[in-house]
């Protein structure tokens, strides 16, 4: 039996007396589409931070395809195939869309230690950037500075950068949040079109998104994993409804 794409066991994180992540187990199989839901303040972003390496856990282990990465720094985890996107886009605002992508592609290709090749002549890398731009539908904005393009396109670019890194595990933090309905379609299509063999964990508040994309759902409440199951099981569960009391499951 092959190891799951990502496995976390007994993750714990506390800030003084405040326990933000309480003995959390999480398993992501290759190709899964796993939604992480829970009320505000449940600790979802912290959990993703622990998985991506932005935060150090106080306890527990994390394994990527069977290899223990608990002590690995965030940028090394990226090299191992664990990529994360953010709720608030972090891009290079002065550079164009194409340049943003090029940076990710060239880093992933490992050429950035090269001092004497000419970046503008790396045909393969430039072609790869071109392909990604077309695949994500960013052609119209390819050469405009990121600060000038629509917010929805920026979120799309964030996703494109993540894909440029050829991840094995992708952690998405509310990928479609805050995007105007008219632009959301592109992002949703992109998520639907994610490679079938990568494991995707999605933090979501929008139940429609969950129903549309997720094959499994985990519910996090007060730092503890309440339950994990298929979308139908989770959404019809009494315990989950009680937690979301007052919120009509959209």
């Amino acid at each position: 039996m092959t190891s799951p794409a990502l496995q976390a066991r007994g993750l714990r994180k506390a800030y003084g007396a405040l326990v933000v992540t309480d003995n959390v187990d999480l398993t992501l199989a290759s190709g899964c589409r796993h939604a992480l839901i829970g009320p505000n303040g449940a600790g979802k972003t912290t959990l993703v931070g622990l998985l991506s390496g932005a935060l150090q856990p106080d306890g527990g282990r994390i394994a990527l395809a069977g290899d223990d990465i608990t002590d690995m720094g965030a940028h090394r985890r990226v090299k191992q195939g664990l990529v994360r996107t953010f709720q608030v886009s972090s891009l290079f605002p002065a550079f164009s869309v194409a340049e943003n992508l090029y940076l990710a592609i060239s880093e992933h290709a490992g050429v950035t230690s090269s001092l004497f090749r000419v970046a503008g002549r790396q045909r393969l890398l430039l072609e790869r950037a071109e392909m990604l731009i077309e695949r994500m539908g960013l052609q119209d904005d390819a050469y405009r500075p990121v600060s000038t393009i629509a917010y929805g396109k920026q979120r799309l670019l964030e996703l494109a950068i993540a894909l440029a890194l050829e991840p094995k595990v992708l952690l998405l933090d509310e990928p479609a949040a805050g995007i105007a309905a008219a632009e959301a379609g592109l992002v949703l299509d992109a998520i639907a079109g994610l490679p079938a063999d990568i494991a995707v964990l999605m933090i979501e508040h929008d139940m429609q998104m969950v129903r549309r994309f997720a094959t499994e759902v985990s519910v996090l409440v007060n730092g503890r994993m309440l339950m994990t199951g298929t979308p139908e099981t989770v959404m019809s569960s009494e315990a989950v409804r009680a937690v979301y009391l007052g919120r009509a499951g959209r």
Partner: protein
Amino acid sequence: MIRIAQSALLSRHRFHWPEALFWLAAVAVYFLFPQYLAIATTVLIVALFAVSYNLAIGFAGILTLGHGLFFGIGAYCAGWIALLGWTEAVSGALASGIIAALVAGALGPFLLRLTGLPLIMVTLGVSVIVYEAANKASWLTGGDDGLTGFTMSPLLGAFRWSVFGDTKYFYALGWLFVLFYAVKRIVASPFGVSLQGIRENALRMRLIGTSTLRHLVIAYSLSAGVAGVAGALSAQSNAFVGLGVLGLDMTIDGLVIVVLGGIGTLYGALIGAPVYMLVKHFAQQWNPFYWMFVVGALLIVVVRFGRGGLLGMAQAGLAWLIRR
């Protein structure tokens, strides 16, 4: 295919006409103003220093106010290498540059974890510490009197260092030409592109897997190496090393040249150097401090109007005139 022409970041390898203008002018100066070769040599050396400073601060985004330190280290090393008997110039300059680069490589992992104001202060502080130490350690540096008593053996075995300064001039020009294109190549490389990414958003670069600290240390060391060579050239052509090579003045000169020439381009430092040095030379003969006024005003204007420096503003002004 991605249209490179539309990407400033990916076309740094392109040739720009101001570069050609500079080299032609530099050669022309030899024929037209042979009596000014001494100051022209100084201009070339300062230009080289400015190019190195631009690599660190303009392309890598390393906010350092202490870059003169490496110029000084290069100068004293070159002086000592010659004093100890090794008077071959090219290898002496190369060795001095390497030593400066090694110092930067040692300091880098500590300094470059800092950004912003703390980095500015520490680089300034380190530079001042070394200046004070050099001042006190007169057995090593000659203190206020400086390091003297060394002469360089003929360049490449054939060209004597005449009092007329031709050898010195072309020696400096040769180094400037080679190192300018080396730095340009570095900036145009995937490494250089990722440096500029680090400058724009270091956090984002880490998120795509870049080891930002390592890249910054390498860039800092390369920049220090070039600055060290510039310092060595100064020592070799003046046959003298004074404390001034370590002073804040050197750093400020370099910084102003980089800013006035346009921080975003390498050739800006080339164009900026002669303009700045000549204005400084003549204005200081008029009144030493009035020109500070002019420089201060220029700095403020340039910062307010964008990174293109005076050259960029001139180009923008020209474009505006053409459009009318």
